[in-house]
């Protein structure tokens, strides 16, 4: 088999990102030029990155190369295997779409903001992500991880004049360092056992891990990657940080930076730690279920469009973890075939979520660009001035709600199938967890549909609720193209799921052993099966065709009989009440009122109504309504933690005397201790 130029295209993409970073920084004085260079090099880098990923996947075997650095343990070693290829493909699709989108989007920065610095951080983020997904050395991985966090911090705080943004940035960087700390400890443990920082060595040394070492490493990595992925209860930074970033960056943060956590889990849990015990898998599964349900419940209460989307990222990460947890359980139970199906479900959902979440954030970005508002209560009726954005957002909304025939449905369907299979393979009471997780997934799906009915309808339908949304305009061309690419990807991955699933063959073979892609496809590539002999079957392409065919009788019914009276436009009936205005419309808060009452145990809603009246209480002049829900995790978990930390810090102040002699003494003692432990044979 002739070898494809994986390493060459990969290096080219990395080089383009690096050059792009420096050139955009250098050309910051010429904003228009800088903008074109920034987006152009990013697009080129994404194209080559995508080519590398496609080559890597087609090749089927891992490509490894390493450049020694001279520093102990550290080497520039890369491992372009199936997992790396898959995540790089996801990254390339998103980076390409976002680069195209940014051509017009960054125009509003001209003369106001430093596009050069933005471009520098943007390229740095893409570069570090590419290296995170490919690095085969723990230290290189950690450096890239840290650069990723810093670049993301710079982009989150890009609108730093705003106090809210600075606070969100601070929260983000603190959480990012807790997660980096956990990872550092975890890798230190693995390095101690294997005597090397190489991922391949971890794999071979995994058998020497004692069960307690394995458990500690698992917890550390789960914390580290879990914080990055934004699973509940480590999610609090996510809904704060993602909405305040520029919209094209929000889409990358939710689309792919969170997925770095998923990548890390797949890499370490399935390869680096050996076969994990079933409690680990069950823990991942349960945390996944919790994240999914709570994520969507919090999303429902949001009326800030971008925060709503950020909470949905938590939900979808939860769905991914359900699949991943199931895969871990099945592997230790000795069912690699099932584990492979569950892993495919998880990773397929990773790709799907990356695409539709990126699309939705870009849509929200277009709305923000056009109206200047993220608050849904001030939007409305945007489907008329912004038809293309509205259509793209609708496709994204249908896809993220897991409705057929789009891509979200396919991966959720695979998740259901693996959960159903899980009932048969595990013993005792734990088996009940799988169907229960399935029912919670159903709840999540239905609530997500409710939430996106709200998000789409309040933003795009009915009457505009403010002057800004009345004077809205369609997004410029490059933004429409960027969204259009991702809309197309949603359709292609949904309708062509059976053609895409075999891509995972090399991946499952590498991580779990079996190749199941062909088992999942029956009947001339049209139908996706659950992989078991009489299991479930589904075909999104046939569903789509059947839906179109069934349109014929529907159109016949309508057109045959209703011709005598024309269809005409008139005022909305509204139960006979005249004068429908934007004040009569349902609001986002009103839409979720029923759910707020039903789940009031969770939300602890508080509302305040103030009536201002002149003479008589029967004739109010103004009514002020305020409603908020209790941020449970912030208040119950993080506030006490913060207090504890501050109290500890106050105590520690005693040793910070401010005297140079004392500090010299500390340094001396530390040095002696380090020498004692370091030199010890």
């Amino acid at each position: 088999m002739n070898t494809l130029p994986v390493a060459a295209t990969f290096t080219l993409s990395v080089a383009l990102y690096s050059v792009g970073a420096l050139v955009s920084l250098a050309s910051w004085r010429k904003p228009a030029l800088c903008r074109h260079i920034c987006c152009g090099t990013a697009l080129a880098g994404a194209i080559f990155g995508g080519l590398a990923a496609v080559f890597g996947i087609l090749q089927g075997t891992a490509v490894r190369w390493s450049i020694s650095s001279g520093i102990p343990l550290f080497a520039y070693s890369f491992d372009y295997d199936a997992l790396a290829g898959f995540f790089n493909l996801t990254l390339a699709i998103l980076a390409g779409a976002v680069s195209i989108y940014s051509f017009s989007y960054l125009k509003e920065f001209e003369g106001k903001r430093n596009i050069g610095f933005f471009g520098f951080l943007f390229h740095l983020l893409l570069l570090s992500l590419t290296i995170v997904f490919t690095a085969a050395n723990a230290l290189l991985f950690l450096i890239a991880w840290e650069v990723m966090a810093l670049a993301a911090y710079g982009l989150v705080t890009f609108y730093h004049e705003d106090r809210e943004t600075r606070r969100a940035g601070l929260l983000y960087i603190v959480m990012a360092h807790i997660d980096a700390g956990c990872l550092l400890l975890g890798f230190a443990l693995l390095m101690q056992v294997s005597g090397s920082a190489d991922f391949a060595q971890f794999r071979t040394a995994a058998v020497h891990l004692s069960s307690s070492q394995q458990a500690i490493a698992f917890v550390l990595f789960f914390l580290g990657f879990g914080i990055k992925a934004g699973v509940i209860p480590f999610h609090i930074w996510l809904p704060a940080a993602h909405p305040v970033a520029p919209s094209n960056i929000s889409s990358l943060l939710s689309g792919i930076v969170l997925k770095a956590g998923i990548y890390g889990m797949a890499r370490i849990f399935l390869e680096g730690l050996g076969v994990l015990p079933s409690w680990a898998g069950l823990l991942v599964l349960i945390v996944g279920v919790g994240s999914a349900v709570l994520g969507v419940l919090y999303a429902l209460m949001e009326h800030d469009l971008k925060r709503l989307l950020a909470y949905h990222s938590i939900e979808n990460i939860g769905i991914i973890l359900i699949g991943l947890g199931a895969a871990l359980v099945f592997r230790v139970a000795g069912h690699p075939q099932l584990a492979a199906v569950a892993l495919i479900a998880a990773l397929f959902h990773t790709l799907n979520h990356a695409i539709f979440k990126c699309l939705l954030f870009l849509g929200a970005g277009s709305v923000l660009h056009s109206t200047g508002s993220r608050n849904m209560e001030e939007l409305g009726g945007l489907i008329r001035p912004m038809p293309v954005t509205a259509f793209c957002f609708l496709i994204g909304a249908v896809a993220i709600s897991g409705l057929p025939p789009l891509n979200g449905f396919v991966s959720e369907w695979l998740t259901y199938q693996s959960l159903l299979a899980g009932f048969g393979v595990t013993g005792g009471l734990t088996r009940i967890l799988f169907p229960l997780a399935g029912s919670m997934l159903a709840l999540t799906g239905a609530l997500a549909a409710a939430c996106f009915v709200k998000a789409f309808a309040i933003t795009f339908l009915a009457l505009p609720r403010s002057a800004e949304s009345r004077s809205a305009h369609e997004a410029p061309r490059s933004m429409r193209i960027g969204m259009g690419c991702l809309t197309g990807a949603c359709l292609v991955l949904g309708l062509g799921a059976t053609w895409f699933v075999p891509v995972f063959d090399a991946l499952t073979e590498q991580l779990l052993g079996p190749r199941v892609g062909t088992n999942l496809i029956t009947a001339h590539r049209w139908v996706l099966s659950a992989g078991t002999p009489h299991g479930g079957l589904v075909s999104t392409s046939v569903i789509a065709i059947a839906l179109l065919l069934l349109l014929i009788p529907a159109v016949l019914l309508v057109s045959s009989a209703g011709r005598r009276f024309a269809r005409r436009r008139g005022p909305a009936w509204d139960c006979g009440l005249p004068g429908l205005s934007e004040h009569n419309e349902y609001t986002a808060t009103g839409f979720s009122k029923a759910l707020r009452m039903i789940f009031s145990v969770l939300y602890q809603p508080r509302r305040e109504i103030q009536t201002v009246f002149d003479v008589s209480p029967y004739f109010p002049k103004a009514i002020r309504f305020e409603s908020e829900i209790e941020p449970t995790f912030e208040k119950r978990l993080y506030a006490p933690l913060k207090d504890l930390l501050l109290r500890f810090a106050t105590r520690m102040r005693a040793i910070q005397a401010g005297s140079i002699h004392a500090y010299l003494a500390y340094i001396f003692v530390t040095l002696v201790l380090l020498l004692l432990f370091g030199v010890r044979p």
Partner: protein
Amino acid sequence: MIGLIAKAGLQLVLVLLVAPLLSGIMKTMKARLQTRRGPNVLQSYQDILKLLRKGMVIPETASWIFSVTPYVVFVTAALVGLMIPMTATDAPLSLFGGVLAVVYLLALGRFFLALGGLDAGSSFGGLGSSREMTISAIAEPAMMLAIFTVALAASSTNLSEMAKVAVSQSWKFLAPSQMLAFAALFIVLIAETGRIPVDNPATHLELTMIHEAMILEYSGPYLALIEYGASIKQLVLMTLVVNTFFPFGLSSDWTLRGLTLGLVFYLIKMLLLACLIVMVETTNAKLRLFRVPELLMVSFIFGALALISTFLF
């Protein structure tokens, strides 16, 4: 291929013919139980025909979503009608989507219906959409648990496989897990088809309506499509309950004799289920909206118990 299209065509005709009839029969039965004369059994056909002949007014405030919605509702319901076994175990399109596809296709219809409700900008539409999405969301986990219980027995989510397994063990509905699953699914059925005590299909009172509030702005042929779609959805869900729990008389092949016998059995079973629903409707008052979650919680618990009893007994 030809056979598939023929089967699909045959079942489509059956679905389109029986759905309004079933609605009509239920209306008449309910009236008789309340000692009213009630409408003619064929009234639902006449309603649809009448609506199709009328003109329609589309609200000035509405967008293209408003016009797309009736088609989506009708088409998804009709497609689901082709995926479930009605008279034969072998449903025409069961190879292309099982029970999960059925649930999610109905959800697609509901998604658009809720958008259509909000599109005109009237507060009643929003009220209906909000309630519909809320109740369906809470009904979903119970429904999925009950479905999982049945699917686990067949170790498949393919409806034809499930029906085949059910036919091979016809008296299985006496097992505790099946009975509990039936109870769970029956409650969900009532919630999903919008009947008392969850919703009242006969009301246009603003405070109590759910489904009717969503479609308040629709008129003429569009309303006909939505009403038709809703009656197909009701038929589909009832068929699902009837044929998964009581698979008597399901034909194993598509021969004339098998199908005729299957059809007779099918109609009898559906009539009995309709009777049960109408009795529940007549003997209960509509629940307050915020009591509905409690009812659905009961259904969820039934589902969980059904699941536990599958491996206890």
